[in-house]
């Protein structure tokens, strides 16, 4: 099996699982308990917190563990909106659903939301942000890097605009964390969401960075965990795994980024050479190392994925969350693709575990599959006949 859907989720790294194992076996204490096993668990959670803080250039007391990247996004957005007086919110048109659907929910519940457009490469224009800001703008949320097309936003520039107006700035860095260098102070953000399973950590663990002084209501009420800010018995093993995965990702960031970028560029080059009527979506340079996203004209994405799967190649069309839905990707529509082309996209996202040989196999399979589907497509008839 060739797994090239690392933007959807990643294999839990064996060395990460190894660090988790004590907490899945003997060290099962509840971190809120004051006896030995509880204290040991607490120490494990707090040192994981220090690890995530270090990875982001934050301080420990600004890191709060959650049950997922989605929960971190929900907490950040609803929490800041609810704590604020202003009723105007700003986000972008290409956010992940975990962000977008929060804004849509708030939009139905007394808030007014501005969705900033993006250009054909997926970039938000800082001028658009400046123009959207109002007296009563309570929150700006723009993702660090897009999950479908990989475009990296100019967050320092955007966050600086927010700061000028004293508006809290959130960024969903779930796709960026561990793949490109991130420092909350260099970015200038007030809130930042991350998730473990995108960087070789376990599923079901995320974290929210909340800059000291940021006004935010609680999201999960209850016990006094996470400094009284997020209730729930801590997923100790998961948290420990997340921190270790983050440490590995940060330690090897440059090396991995170089390797993965090379693989991806090789794949992109080979696709362009071998398959006609395709277009690369996203930005040529301001792009996550592992991300590629092609639209193949005249064919539909799901058929492409199923065909690849039959050859043992696991890849994605848009975000995993939206598969099963009939709408074409909102991201591809936002960068201006027509519907039928937006329907035919293939996201291949590499990790450092992928190889050049795998890319060669993908290329060898992809061409005939695309051709077979085109031969089956009524949209291709005219083209073929013209050619």
């Amino acid at each position, binding site marked *: 099996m060739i797994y090239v859907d690392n933007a959807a989720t990643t294999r839990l790294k064996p060395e990460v699982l190894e660090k988790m194992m004590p907490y899945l076996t003997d060290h099962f204490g509840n971190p809120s308990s004051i006896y030995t096993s509880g204290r040991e668990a607490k120490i494990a959670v707090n040192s994981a917190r220090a690890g995530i803080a270090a990875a982001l250039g934050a301080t420990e007391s600004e890191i709060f563990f959650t049950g997922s990247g989605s929960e971190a996004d929900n907490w950040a957005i609803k929490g800041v909106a609810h704590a604020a007086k202003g009723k105007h919110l700003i986000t972008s048109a290409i956010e992940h659903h975990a962000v977008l659907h929060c804004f849509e929910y708030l939009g139905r519940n007394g808030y007014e939301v501005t969705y900033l457009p993006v250009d054909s490469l997926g970039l938000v224009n800082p001028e658009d942000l400046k123009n959207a800001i109002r007296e009563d703008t309570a929150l700006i949320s723009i993702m660090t890097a897009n999950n479908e097309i990989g475009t990296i936003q100019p967050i320092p520039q955007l966050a600086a605009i927010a700061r000028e107006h004293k508006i809290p700035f959130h960024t969903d860095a779930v796709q960026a964390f561990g793949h490109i260098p991130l420092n909350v102070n260099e970015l200038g953000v007030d809130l930042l969401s991350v998730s473990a399973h995108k960087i070789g950590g376990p599923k079901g663990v995320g974290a929210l960075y909340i800059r000291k002084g940021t006004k935010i209501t609680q999201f999960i009420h209850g016990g006094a965990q996470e400094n009284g800010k997020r209730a729930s018995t801590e997923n100790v093993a998961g948290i420990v795994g997340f921190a270790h995965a983050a440490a590995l990702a940060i330690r090897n960031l440059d090396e991995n980024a170089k390797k993965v970028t090379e693989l991806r560029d090789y794949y992109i080059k080979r696709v362009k050479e071998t398959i006609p009527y395709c277009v690369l979506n996203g930005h040529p340079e301001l792009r996550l190392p592992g991300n590629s996203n092609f639209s193949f004209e*005249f*064919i*539909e*994405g*799901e*058929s492409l994925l*199923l065909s690849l799967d*039959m050859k043992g190649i696991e890849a994605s069309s848009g975000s995993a969350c939206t*598969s*099963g*839905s*009939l*709408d*074409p990707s909102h991201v591809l529509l936002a960068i201006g693709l*027509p*519907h*039928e082309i937006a*329907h035919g996209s293939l996201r291949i996202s590499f990790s450092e575990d992928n190889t050049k040989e795998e890319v060669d196999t993908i290329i060898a399979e992809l061409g005939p599959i695309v051709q077979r589907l085109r*031969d*089956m*497509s*009524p*949209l291709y*008839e005219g083209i073929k006949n013209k050619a």
Partner: protein
Amino acid sequence: MLYSEKVMEHFANPRNVGEIEDANAIGEVGNKKCGDIMKIYMKIENEVIVDIKFKTFGCGAAVATSSMATELVKGKTIKEALAITNKAVVEALEGLPPVKMHCSVLAEEAIKSAIADYYRRQGIDPEPIVGCSLKCESCHSHG
């Protein structure tokens, strides 16, 4: 979203793919926006569908329902073909995920659309025979 083995089998080896040069009935339904287009070619002789082929732009379910619908219709009389509902196609495929039900509707409509074309070519109003006008009203089969 999980496909049955039967769906996967028909997706992997779709029956009756292609065009018919001398077709005397052609129907096309769906639209690009929805991400599903089905085009059906038929050769009808003495009210019997002696040959049928399809071309489909669409998801796995769209391909599989096209394949299954053409199989069910092949060799049948027009009357028999018109009696085949989307339900029959779904059953023959051992089920479809709820979000993909509309594909089976599309397949039924594609068959009817081709038959309507057959009548229209002969100057006969297909409406009383085939039923109401055929359109992919929207991309969503549910709310």
